[in-house]
């Protein structure tokens, strides 16, 4: 499907289109956040500890008197990075492996699919946790772990799609006209399986944000002074009996971003195949 057609159809899926705008804004905000935030994220306003939202501190302050609005904006960086790395690694590693496996077929494909099935039988978050634990606890390693656990899913999807298109007339024609397998995969197979992969990437983006938040919440991701929404919730949890309000905004930030990724995925799926709309 042509990209333009897809975008035009997406435009008519209002919720999905709004989500796309939200996500693009979020990416933009996280890039310019360091320049526009109203406070220093580590500055402690000790006269205003655990303040409720007010005109000065829009989202209130935490138990050290740090501005929560500032920290939410900066925490978006970790979420966006996790989302992007979480889909880049599978796109760069999983998709090519899946295409090759599906195109080649035979014993290589059998073994490859068994390995993919095996990795997929691990609970995603547990495997991410274990990989982070092995690599060493840090935000960067958590993001790599997220990328690794999403890779088999993309590989399986790409392989399945490749199986569907590899007997198509245009692939046969390319073969007859003497194109090598590498060229066929790059030029003919990949463009024709891209749509479902884009849909999957959208869902994985939001799942990556969720997993990053979970890992940071457990102390396995962002380490102070790195800021992450999950880390902010960890901090809010220790203050839950004192100031329950602290957990409000980081949670909303995660929820909205995950929702946006899911809505975008749903919308893209309909944009690609309008018959999906019924369900």
């Amino acid at each position, binding site marked *: 499907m042509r990209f333009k057609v897809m975008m035009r159809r997406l435009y008519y899926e209002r919720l999905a289109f709004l989500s796309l705008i939200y996500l693009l804004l979020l990416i933009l905000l996280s890039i310019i956040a360091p320049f526009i935030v109203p406070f220093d994220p580590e500055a402690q306003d000790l006269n205003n500890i655990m303040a409720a939202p007010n005109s000065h501190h829009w989202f209130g302050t935490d138990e050290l008197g740090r501005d929560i609005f500032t920290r939410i904006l900066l925490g978006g960086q970790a979420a966006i990075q996790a989302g992007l790395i979480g889909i880049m690694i599978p796109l760069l590693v999983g998709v090519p492996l899946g295409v090759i496996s599906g195109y080649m077929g035979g014993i290589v494909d059998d073994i490859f699919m*068994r*390995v993919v*099935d*095996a*990795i997929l*039988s*691990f*609970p*995603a*978050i*547990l*495997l991410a*946790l*274990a*990989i*982070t*634990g*092995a*690599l*060493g*606890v840090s935000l960067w390693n958590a993001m790599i772990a997220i990328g690794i656990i999403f890779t088999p899913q993309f590989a399986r999807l790409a392989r399945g799609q490749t199986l569907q298109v590899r007997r198509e007339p245009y692939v046969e024609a390319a073969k007859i006209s003497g194109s090598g397998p590498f060229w066929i995969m790059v030029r003919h197979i990949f463009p024709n399986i891209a749509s479902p992969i884009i849909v999957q990437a959208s869902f994985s983006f*939001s799942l990556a944000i*969720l997993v990053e*938040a*979970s890992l940071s*919440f*457990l*102390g*396995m991701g962002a380490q102070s002074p790195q800021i992450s929404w*999950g880390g902010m*919730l960890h901090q*809010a*949890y220790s203050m*839950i*009996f004192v100031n*329950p309000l602290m*957990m409000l905004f*980081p*949670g909303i930030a*995660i*929820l909205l971003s*995950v*929702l946006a990724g*899911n809505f975008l995925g749903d919308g893209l799926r309909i944009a690609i195949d309008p018959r999906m709309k*019924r*369900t």
Partner: protein
Amino acid sequence: MFFRFLLRRIFYVIPMLLITTLIVFSLILLIPGDPALALLGDNATAEKLAALRAQLGLDQPIIMQYWHWLTNAIQGDLGRSLFTGEYVSDAVFTRLGVTFQVVAMAMIFSFAFGLLFAITSVIKPNSWMDYIARFFGVLGTAIPNFWLAMILVVLFSVHLGWLPATGFTSISDHPVDFMKSVLLPSFCLGSFGAAQITRQLRSSLIEVLESDYIRTAYSKGLLLWQVIWKHGLRNALLPVVTTAGLLFGNMLGATVVIESVFAIPGMGQLAVHSILQRDFPMLQGVVLIMVLMILIINFITDVIYGVLDPRIEFE
């Protein structure tokens, strides 16, 4: 026929078992640099390092290391904790029961809410009931479960004081306290599953209710609930069996977060602790047992699906 079907499923599971154990074992290869040094820290003595290398078999070639680890694991020996020195298998199995109770309750929640929402939603499409069901279907898959947990703790523990914020009582010790301690964790654990089941069951019910035999059932004079109960659900529930298997794995993973929030001494909490303490044999043990449980559950759901669906031939 059925026996051959069973045999084929078993032949599928065996290589899966081998590969998953290989993956669990390979986790140790991800540790950058010298694993012994990384696990014990910089100020470890040379004797301690040598002892750990011998314990983990790090002085042998990798394939031999795997072989030793696997043969020991098959005999139930998963090594000893680097931190407390207790047997990994003992620690894991005492916690297995706790996690199992929480996950079982979460599964019940998922199905109860999933069925309720899906059915109320298809009874009157586009009514307010339908919108509520769809709203929860969307929200449940996106809400961070630990955030939901915090909200519920504030509401039910801090404000109302009805339920404990943390801790766990086993069902065999005190059934009432068990229900109190498990209500919030398993609800948070089950919210994702409830949403998944709602979404899936709703769309498969809608599809089933449009089919010819449902129209026949109506024309026989059956009432709406009779049609849904006797003809709709029975056919629409089938794909949910597979979902249940997937959900089980998902929930088992999510215990890592939920058990930490509610301070429940289960497998998930053990996994988190063993990473924070760099207790690698323990981590491997937890991951291995969890994935084994998932493989067993997947095997069972596959077989159940095969038995339930007459359209699947045992060939």
